[in-house]
């Protein structure tokens, strides 16, 4: 064949074996790592594995900013909520600047979680109108003292250890004439009746035990209808049932009286609560501290904002005059009473503490709730997708089948068109596929990458992009052969130019993927990530695998001699006779010096 006059091979052909060895070692190492780490399959996204995916968008209220700190706090709360449901592997992530994606893998609790997550993180202090243990299993084995202990200020007077185990409220108060097991139920109806009566106003004077009628809430809760409804709700409420619990405080407006559930030492209590007296946003700060002086153990200290301090002083002033349980206020987070401390005196000055026989975690958790509840971000549900595992699996199946068919078509096309060269292409595609799979598997545990349906699409589309690079290179080589070069110099000469083209166009692809990844959220992001990843891998594969392999193969007789099936047969490529260079070196204009159409 054509004798290369200007063999550039010597310098450019440097050690193809080394690159090949390098990438093979990398593949082996990565694959080994994959098997060692035990994550041998990519983590499947919610749309493939089944489950529920909820996208929430933050809304700024009251001039509060949507910033990273607020978003992170919100993620914390939601995480606590979904994982508090016992849902394993639920994940909550921020996405973009103002979105939170909650993925709940398939499981029975997804609907409940959806409700929990979807509701706004709102905390209110509401006066307790009545409360009692709820449900058949109100087995509160602990005597009342401790039962209220976790939620009420350290009782100064000795806790009445009367083992009237069914009641909670009465015991801690020093004077508790009313609280008998029977009176509880009546107290409720009394309270509600009082609600309905038009003269609730001056709750002021400490009423004698009998009828704990007057509540400050009455006027707000509307007519007797509302009261009746509330009473019916209260009677029907069974806090041991999760559905009842979830529905209890749902959709409550701050101004309404509500029924709610709360847990005190493993026993559920139900409450009737008045309108919100203090908003959670008015808690400036809450923290758990260990009280060394008073020896009262762990307690939660709250600092209120100025407005909050005033309201808190008012409500505590009123509550302090009342009888148990109406001297308590319920701290309600998302419709659930998280704590119901009682009040001894009006608390002015905007500082308050809740003490009791807290364990450290309890105190910290309550402090967190108080802080979190004060979070000024509320969220709007943007989309909820539930996918059954069956459907997801089907889609994945179809996606993989489509990928396989697409790949097969590409391979057929390459074989028909490039013949022997297609071996190089197929080997490169194979390497690319292995690397993509292994890296995706490893990225699952590393950065929580989950393969979702759009990502599968991205990977399939990437077959085309990867094949593009080979085509650019192959066509270059063939052009060089057409120029009359023999294979080895053609392979080397074609490389720098093909390399530049590949880099430039891959850069554009990568730029598109990067911009999409940064700007967008959710599905689009997964797609962009896959596209970016495969573009990078394309460069790696072409540089460290395709090119060295080509160099090696160019030494084989089959290819070098331009066998009919090699895809590099100079005759059928229409090569010109061997180069007879004239004075000009291979300048770019002169390089592919063909007769142009006249």
């Amino acid at each position, binding site marked *: 064949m054509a004798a290369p006059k200007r063999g550039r091979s010597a310098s450019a052909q440097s050690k193809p074996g080394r690159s090949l060895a390098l990438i093979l070692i990398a593949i082996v190492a990565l694959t080994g790592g994959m098997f060692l780490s035990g994550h041998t399959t990519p983590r499947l996204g919610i749309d493939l594995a089944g489950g529920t995916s909820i996208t929430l968008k933050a809304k700024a209220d009251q001039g509060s900013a949507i910033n990273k700190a607020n978003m992170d706090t919100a993620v914390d709360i939601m995480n606590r909520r979904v994982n508090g449901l016992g849902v394993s592997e639920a994940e909550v992530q921020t996405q973009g600047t103002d979105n939170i994606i909650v993925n709940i893998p398939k499981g029975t609790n997804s609907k409940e979680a959806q409700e929990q997550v979807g509701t706004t993180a709102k905390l209110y202090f509401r006066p307790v109108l009545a409360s009692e243990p709820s449900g058949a299993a109100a087995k509160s084995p602990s005597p009342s003292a401790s039962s209220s202990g976790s939620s009420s200020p350290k009782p100064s007077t000795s806790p009445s250890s009367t083992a009237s185990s069914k009641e909670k409220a009465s015991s801690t108060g020093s004077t508790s004439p009313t609280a008998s097991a029977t009176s509880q139920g009546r107290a409720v109806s009394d309270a509600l009746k009082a609600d309905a009566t038009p003269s609730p106003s001056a709750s002021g004077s400490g009423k004698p035990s009998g009828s704990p009628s007057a509540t400050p809430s009455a006027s707000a809760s509307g007519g007797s209808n509302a009261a009746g409804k509330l009473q019916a709700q209260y009677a029907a409420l069974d806090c041991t049932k999760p559905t009842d619990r979830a529905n209890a405080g749902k959709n409550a407006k701050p101004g309404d009286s509500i029924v709610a559930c709360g847990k005190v030492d493993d026993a559920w209590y139900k409450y009737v609560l008045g309108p919100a007296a203090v908003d959670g946003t008015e808690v400036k700060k809450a923290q758990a501290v260990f009280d060394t002086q008073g020896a009262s153990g762990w307690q939660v200290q709250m600092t209120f904002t100025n407005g909050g301090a005033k309201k808190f002083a008012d409500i505590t002033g009123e509550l302090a005059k009342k009888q148990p349980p109406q001297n308590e206020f319920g701290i309600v987070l998302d419709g659930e009473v998280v704590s119901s401390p009682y009040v001894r005196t009006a608390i002015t000055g905007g500082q308050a503490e809740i003490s009791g026989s807290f364990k450290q975690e309890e105190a910290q958790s309550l402090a967190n709730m108080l802080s979190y509840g004060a979070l000024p971000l509320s969220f709007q*549900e943007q989309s909820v997708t539930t996918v059954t595992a069956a459907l997801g699996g089907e*889609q994945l199946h179809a996606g993989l089948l489509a990928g396989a068919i697409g790949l097969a078509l590409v391979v057929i096309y390459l074989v028909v068109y490039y013949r022997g060269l297609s071996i190089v292409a197929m080997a490169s595609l194979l390497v690319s596929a292995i690397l993509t799979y292994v890296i995706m598997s490893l990225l699952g545990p590393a950065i929580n990458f989950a393969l979702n349906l759009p990502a599968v699409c*991205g990977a399939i589309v990437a*077959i*085309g992009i990867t094949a593009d690079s080979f085509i650019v290179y192959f066509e270059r080589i063939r052009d060089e052969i057409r120029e009359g070069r023999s294979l080895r110099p053609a392979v080397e000469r074609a490389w720098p130019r093909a390399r530049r083209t590949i880099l430039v166009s891959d850069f554009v692809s990568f730029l*598109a993927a990067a911009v999409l990844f940064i700007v967008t959220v959710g599905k689009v992001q997964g797609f962009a990530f896959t596209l970016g990843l495969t573009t990078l891998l394309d460069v790696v594969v072409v540089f460290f695998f395709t090119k060295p392999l080509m160099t090696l193969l160019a030494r084989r007789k089959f290819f070098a001699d331009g066998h009919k099936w090699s895809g590099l047969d100079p005759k059928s490529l229409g090569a010109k006779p061997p180069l007879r260079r004239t004075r000009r070196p291979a300048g770019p204009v002169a390089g592919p010096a063909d007769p*142009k159409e006249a």
Partner: protein
Amino acid sequence: MSKLGNLGARLHRGEISYDFVGKRKVWYGVSILITITAILGLAVRGLNMGIEFQGGAVFTTPTKMSTSVAKAEEYANEASGHQSVVQKLGNGSLRIQIAGIDTDQSDRIKQELAKDLNLDPEKLAADLVGPSWGEQIANKAWEGLAIFMILVVIYLAIAFEWRMAIAALVALIHDITITTGIYALVGFEVTPGTVIGLLTILGYSLYDTVVVFDSLKEQTKDITKQTRWTYSDIANRSINGTLVRSINTTVVALLPVAGLLFIGGGFLGAGTLNDISLSLFVGLAAGAYSSIFIATPLVADLKEREPAMKALTKRVLAKRAQAGAEEDLADRGGDDADEAAPAVVGPRSQPAARGRGRGRTPGKRR
């Protein structure tokens, strides 16, 4: 060798070629016509926005439903009080779309539907979206598009030159217009999946364009040092030279997408796979077209306005006129004779041109 291989060889040798640049006016016309049609389609018919953009719910049943579409529609209307759209998918499952319902309602509707359809509610997949979700995705997409365009124009202007950057941008806008136009005209549903597909076209359409530009840049590096070809000629040769590659890459890119489209659409019916692959398919085809027929001719057009190129064109034309008078030596002569003769002899016989050429040479050589 396959026929296409021969075509490649003949294209390479220049035995055959299509005058893309020379006939650019025709293709501009075609493109303008398509664009106008697309814009008219958008204006008149508008886009068929999917449920993600209006809010609502999509319920998908498992495969093998015995319930008929009409019956399911009746159930859905009854359960929701809204008009529903029910489609039967390729695999026998039903896709029930109900627009304008919110989260609270959907749960109830789901239960009710499941009961009516005799299904376990767990098996009824629900895709529930607020009205602003699609809008948000679309807004982010536009944002991404704008950022990407700015960055890519900057990049191309640096890597190549501003004319190419502009031409690439025009081609890109052209692709997007055509794709959305087809969506409007045919009435395909626009979903977030469609948006994803559309965004992918960005990178891909440019990939093709960039490959042609790369070859063009390389071949026109020393263009002012010869008088045989005008910029347009070389641009045309670049297109023809990369034509086989363009065809190959487009085919190879379209094959997997076609697979997705066929599998996604044929077996699973509407869904993410289908949405993405449909817009990709349309966009890829438009992208291949625009990189060949629009982007490169546009570069040539812009480039020919440059004084240096104008001068070159003049010289080339003058020389060709002369060569024509001397009979078509070029046709019979070998490459080398051909190559040597015009480049050297041409200028020599034309003092004016030579002088001008010489004057420019130092500037052009860096």
